[in-house]
């Protein structure tokens, strides 16, 4: 059934060819401009903390691939206030299908996918330039951290959506965590102030798909290696409190009266 919905969304996008093209061009342009700024900064400074350009390019590439991928399929969560304000949510709740599923169906933004390719491209570019001896374990950690990244970005959108039950309108500070988090992850998170690093390691575990697995892959840092290696798996546990919070909020929701 999901396939059917995806097909419908895809067809509807193809109806607006020039519009779609412009959307793709502008979103790619922004990412390229941001990557250029990273490149220019490294050409001025060579390193940030202990990290070099290609190492930072790896985190940049990963988040550039992960974020639009999640945005493409979880747009319904990101734009959740629209469903609450418009009363769509009330209609969804009387349908005999799981609310999570319906939100995944509600919107699919395919024009985000070329950006995923750009991110994958940057990741491959950086891996090709890094002198890392790839072992089976390292490849697995890299794949796990991509999966972990998808889960955590989704979690952030889910919590943002859950806030909408109480505030109706979308809150800009949720945007800080989603878009701000995305920009934060352009670099290995431990280059920032220690409070920022701690917050995004222990409260919102962006570090689990960012500098922790990277430390393992590159063999850096003073943390125990086994902990870095399993960090993507630990990060995925973040899904549990987020889903519980969403369910709890859903139970307390009393229609916006539309």
């Amino acid at each position: 059934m999901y396939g059917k919905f995806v097909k419908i969304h895809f067809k509807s996008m193809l109806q607006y060819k020039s519009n779609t093209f412009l959307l793709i061009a502008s979103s790619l342009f922004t990412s390229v401009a941001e990557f250029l700024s990273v490149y220019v900064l490294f050409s001025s400074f060579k390193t940030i903390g202990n990290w070099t350009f290609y190492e930072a390019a790896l985190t940049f590439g990963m988040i550039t691939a992960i974020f639009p991928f999640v945005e493409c399929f979880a747009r319904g969560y990101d734009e959740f206030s629209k469903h609450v304000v418009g009363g769509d949510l009330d209609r969804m709740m009387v349908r005999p299908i799981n609310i999570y599923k319906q939100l995944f169906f509600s919107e699919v933004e395919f024009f985000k996918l070329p950006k995923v390719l750009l991110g994958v491209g940057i990741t491959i570019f950086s891996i090709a330039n890094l002198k890392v001896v790839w072992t089976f374990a390292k490849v697995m950690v890299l794949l796990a951290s991509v999966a972990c990244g998808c889960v955590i970005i989704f979690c952030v959108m889910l919590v943002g959506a859950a806030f909408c039950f109480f505030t109706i309108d979308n809150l800009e500070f949720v945007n800080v965590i989603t878009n701000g988090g995305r920009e934060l992850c352009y670099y290995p998170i431990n280059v920032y102030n220690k409070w920022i690093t701690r917050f995004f390691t222990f409260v919102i575990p962006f570090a689990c798909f960012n500098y922790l697995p990277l430390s393992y892959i590159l063999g850096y840092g003073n943390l125990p290696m086994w902990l870095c290696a399993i960090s993507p798996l630990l990060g995925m546990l973040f899904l549990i409190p987020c889903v519980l919070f969403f369910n709890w909020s859903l139970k307390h929701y009393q229609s916006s009266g539309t």
Partner: protein
Amino acid sequence: MKSYFALFKMTFKGELQYRAKAISGIITQLFWGAMYISLYTAFMNSGTVNGFTIPQMASYIWLGQAFFAMKYVNMPKGAAKEIVGGNVCYKFTRPINLYSQWYAELVGQKLSATLLRFAPIIVLGFVLPASFGLMLPVGVGEFFLFLFGLVLGLLMSSAIGMIAVYLTFRTLSQRGMAQILGTITSLLCGSFVPLPLLPQNLQKVISYMPFRVIGDLPFRIYIGNISVSEGLVQMAIGTAWFVVVVVIGVLLLKLSQRKTEIQGG
């Protein structure tokens, strides 16, 4: 002229109503400010740039966050919807100039959004310790030139916003070309990366472009990275560019107005 001023006043007062939005915006700006300062401090600790110190960088970032609403390229509220939806034809029938009408609205909207947001960020910046806070302006002359630069920046970013309006007219989408224009402007006015952190030759090229007067130039005068005499020259270049951008905007909008077909309905 009076009617344009009335439009300016109307949007100005209208935007002042959105206080909750402003508070949320301030929190956002504080977050970004802290993040950028932390990031660039990490960069600057591993290398030096000619004459741009960490306290100067922190001040540059805080000023950028405080005046973000002014720098950001946007369109008059509702303009995009009117253009795409077709309601813009009612605007055509008014006996006042379309460009001036939207321009007055845009300046009013930006000014009140800025006035609602800048004070808490500036105050917090002053309270914070020097290495990540906001410094006082280096001198009285610099401060007045900074204020003049802010006004010019406001006028310039609104003029660029009007080009975005034209692009929306042509493409009937505000997220395509108009967004690309916004990204270019952010990049070249130092919203992504403070311009003093860029390589010298790149900075030189950017200093002849119309964008840096939005933000970068006044901020650098404030922190003493650009002297008053050099600042005056740059300001003159900026003013000339401002005239050019407005003229281009007026002509383009006239052109698209002539080509517009009302589709009925």
